[in-house]
């Protein structure tokens, strides 16, 4: 059982402490609170120079310092404060930087509300647990044998067959019923690879439907998408040795993951607003009358500055685009504005929470939309790498990691 140090302010007065502990329990982890002497709290404020008013926040920095100085032992850190607390958000970000600069403990941040439920925390806890407990597995660089990876995403289900570190079969199907969609994607992947299910040495599943599919296919590896996708991303981009940042914008959510030597050490997940997801671009493509596969090319011909967008929201944002189309703005400009809106929202809400490390690897289905790549390049002033099979990284990560289980029951 791994120990996750909770460094937080306000959870005990927000009615969510139980949810945090239950989420940790579900991934076989234990929440601990680093104990520090009273003097240590004031001393930390003096040493760091961050003299906040709230004592709970002062305690947070002291607890982080205790971990860095080795006074308390923990495998991972869950860093959390109340949503919309100004002082909390400023300090939380600095505590995260402090931990990342001075230790190799994986950290995940979260801003909670009174409605925070264990399911929202589960993927984060599971990823923390994986990073802390399965470093050996995540350090695997090569795929071996004949393996299948299935990524059951919210919008599409992807399947990949790999043999001796090469992709030999791919399958893709829109996600409807989880098992049915997976069967179609898997059949396509097996067919293009020219192999049968029985010949496979090992199977790995990831994504929203990973547990259902894991049970159905008797998978050797059932793993959340944060660690699996990051593995797939660094494999496809051939960046397994140094540092990297993965931007993964999927059908209904988005993730930004920082990586060191092929292992994720910090991440942030969106999911509050679909305006920063592939769904927003899908609706836009319907509105401008092109297939989603043509939206990228169309958007590269437009200029986002010609469109007045007042909202990132999937509803109000689309409303703005429709109004602009009606006012005579070109389809190209509207497509470019939609891409820019997604990139800007990911930048403002996700990328600010991680230290951006080059190269930036852009993956997920949306990475194939050229206008979105350009929007990220404009905003970040760094050209993202879009590797081959960028839309299949979850399935590739699954196929790669599951090869560690070949020969095991």
């Amino acid at each position, binding site marked *: 059982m791994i120990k996750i140090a909770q460094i937080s302010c306000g959870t005990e007065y927000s009615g969510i402490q139980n949810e945090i502990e239950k989420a940790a329990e579900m991934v076989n982890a234990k929440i601990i609170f680093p104990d520090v002497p009273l003097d240590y709290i004031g001393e930390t404020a003096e040493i760091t*120079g961050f*003299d906040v*008013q709230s004592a709970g926040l002062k305690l947070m920095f002291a607890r982080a310092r205790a971990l860095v100085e080795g006074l308390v032992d923990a495998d991972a850190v869950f860093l959390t404060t109340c949503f919309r607390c100004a002082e909390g958000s400023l300090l939380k970000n600095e505590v995260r930087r402090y931990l990342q600069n001075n230790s190799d403990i994986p950290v995940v941040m979260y801003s909670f509300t009174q409605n925070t439920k264990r399911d929202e925390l589960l993927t984060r806890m599971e990823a923390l647990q994986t990073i802390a407990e399965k470093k050996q597995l995540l350090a695997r660089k090569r795929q071996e044998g004949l393996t299948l990876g299935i990524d059951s995403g919210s919008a599409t289900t992807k399947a990949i067959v790999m043999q001796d570190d090469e992709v030999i079969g791919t399958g893709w199907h829109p996600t409807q019923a989880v098992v049915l969609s997976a069967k179609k994607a898997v059949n396509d992947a097996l067919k293009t690879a020219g192999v049968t299910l029985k010949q496979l040495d090992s199977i790995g599943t990831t994504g929203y439907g990973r547990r259902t599919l894991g049970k159905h296919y008797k998978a050797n590896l059932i793993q959340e998408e944060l660690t699996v996708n990051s593995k797939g991303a660094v494999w496809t981009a051939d960046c397994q040795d140094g540092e990297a940042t993965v931007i993964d914008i999927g059908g209904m959510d988005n993730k930004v993951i920082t990586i060191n030597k092929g292992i994720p050490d910090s991440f942030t997940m969106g999911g509050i607003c679909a305006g920063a997801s592939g769904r927003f671009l899908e609706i836009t493509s319907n509105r401008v009358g092109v297939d989603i596969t043509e939206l990228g090319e169309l958007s590269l011909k437009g200029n986002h500055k010609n469109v007045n967008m007042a909202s990132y929201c999937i509803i109000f944002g689309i409303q703005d685009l429709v109004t602009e189309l009606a006012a005579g703005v070109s389809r190209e400009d509207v497509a470019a504005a939609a891409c820019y809106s997604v990139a800007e929202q990911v930048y403002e809400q996700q990328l*600010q929470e991680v230290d951006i490390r080059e190269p930036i690897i852009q993956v997920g289905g949306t990475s194939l939309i050229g206008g979105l790549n350009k929007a990220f390049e404009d905003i970040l002033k760094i050209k993202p790498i879009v590797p081959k099979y960028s839309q299949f990284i979850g399935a590739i990560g699954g196929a790669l990691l599951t090869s560690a289980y070949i020969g095991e029951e």
Partner: protein
Amino acid sequence: MKVAIFPPNSLILADLIERSGHEPLTIMKELSVRVRDPEIDSPPLNITPEDSSRGLKYASAEAPSGVRGRLAVFGPIYEEADAIVALKNSPISFGCLGCARTNEFLLYMIHSSKKPHIILEYPSSEEETICIVREILDFLKRMDNND
């Protein structure tokens, strides 16, 4: 030498820096850049709408826009400076940012800065004032000698 001050709109501190032969970096100068910039259509009230987003360099999206907007103006001042002189816990009339959270963060930024800096407590008597002025002038002199 460019010397940033805290509070960044303190006329007294700016004057002290100037009298000792250095260039004080102040908010007034930073805001006037925005007012005179021909690329900006109409002079903004302190910051432009983009500044709040620029403040994301210092604080996350969750931080209030007013904090981020302030940091977009004040943050670059401390980055540009060769040295920093700060007086903490000063009264409003001495200089003020109007936001306790920004004050806390900027003092933290100054404290963690690798640039030469001095952080002093605002004086409460004439004797303390004399001491503080002397400490600031000594600090600046040391910086001069290092140059």
